[in-house]
């Protein structure tokens, strides 16, 4: 039968997953069958996807991508690889969303932010001390290259204004609004709803402080607009932004983007 082993189609005579492992590797290798790491042996069927990973070894470049994506369902990976997502704002939401989308293998990401990394960002944003003073676009791009070198990342270190929304985001499937200021959020969402009729918009509102995690939701107030957050907790004097709720909200946005890329429009 034909199965895919570490990204390559092979004709095999083995009946089970562990027989393939015995032939190609050794007993301590990890075996992932169609996205699930198995501890006991399974019979193989035609078209199965098998990944065999030797712990502590750096695999060859051509095997690395299939190993990294081994925990995704195979069909899902193919769709995500073709996905095009633009992220506007690379703060607590945008930087963490970009990391998640890179991990799941979204094929093309556009990162947009005009600002540089400064110390007060580190309480919730995906940057390190070594990034202080760097443009957020480049600091994030260097991290994503370490997480997943098999995706294309474009960066634009510019301020997003009404006038450049179409030029920046017009060719993307999904636009992620991840700004900090409410007026900037509203400007981007209004402009995108009016001028980008084919782009899905995933925005955020309300994730400051440390109120219950469960108040943060994904909603769809307008057909093409998803809003994640509790819709109430604004950042302000005495109401700071903290990593846990910001990342919960970022997770909501990233999962809605994932769903849209897979053709699921329901929240």
């Amino acid at each position, binding site marked *: 039968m034909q199965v895919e082993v570490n990204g390559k189609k092979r004709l095999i005579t083995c009946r089970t997953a562990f027989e393939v492992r015995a032939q190609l590797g050794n007993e301590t290798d990890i075996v992932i069958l169609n996205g699930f790491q198995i501890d006991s042996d399974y019979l193989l069927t035609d078209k199965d996807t098998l990944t065999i990973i030797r712990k502590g070894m750096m695999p060859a470049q051509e095997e690395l991508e299939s190993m990294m994506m081994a925990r995704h369902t195979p069909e899902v990976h193919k769709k995500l690889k073709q996905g095009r997502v633009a992220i506007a704002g690379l703060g607590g939401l945008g930087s963490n969303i970009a990391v998640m989308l890179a991990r799941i293998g979204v094929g093309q990401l556009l990162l947009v932010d005009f600002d540089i990394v400064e110390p007060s960002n580190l309480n919730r944003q995906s940057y390190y001390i070594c990034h202080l003073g760097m443009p957020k676009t480049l600091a994030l791009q260097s991290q994503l290259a370490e997480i997943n070198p098999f995706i294309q990342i474009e960066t634009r270190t510019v301020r997003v204004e009404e006038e450049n929304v179409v030029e920046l985001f017009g060719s993307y499937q999904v636009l992620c609004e991840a*700004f900090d200021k*409410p007026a900037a959020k*509203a400007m981007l*969402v209004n402009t995108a709803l009016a001028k980008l009729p084919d782009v899905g918009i995933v925005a955020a*509102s*309300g994730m400051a402080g440390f109120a219950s995690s469960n108040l943060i939701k994904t909603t769809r*107030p*307008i057909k093409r607009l998803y809003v994640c957050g509790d819709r109430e*907790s604004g950042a302000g004097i005495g109401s700071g*932004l903290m990593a846990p709720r910001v990342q919960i909200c970022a997770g909501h946005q990233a999962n809605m983007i994932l769903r849209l890329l897979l053709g699921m429009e329901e929240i």
Partner: protein
Amino acid sequence: MRLNGETVQLEQEQTLSEFLMAAKVDCKTIAVERNGVIVPKAEYESIWLSEEDTLEIVRFVGGG
């Protein structure tokens, strides 16, 4: 009128802009959909609301 999924009474003839001002909503931080169509900010002052209208007002608070 329907507002964000609920029925509200329109007390008097008013524009969208007047309605938002009375509700103490900052126009800079919202997106408004009226009867399935996005309302450009420039039209808030010229749109008169009617009882048949369905409005969706999405308000953004700060943080990200």
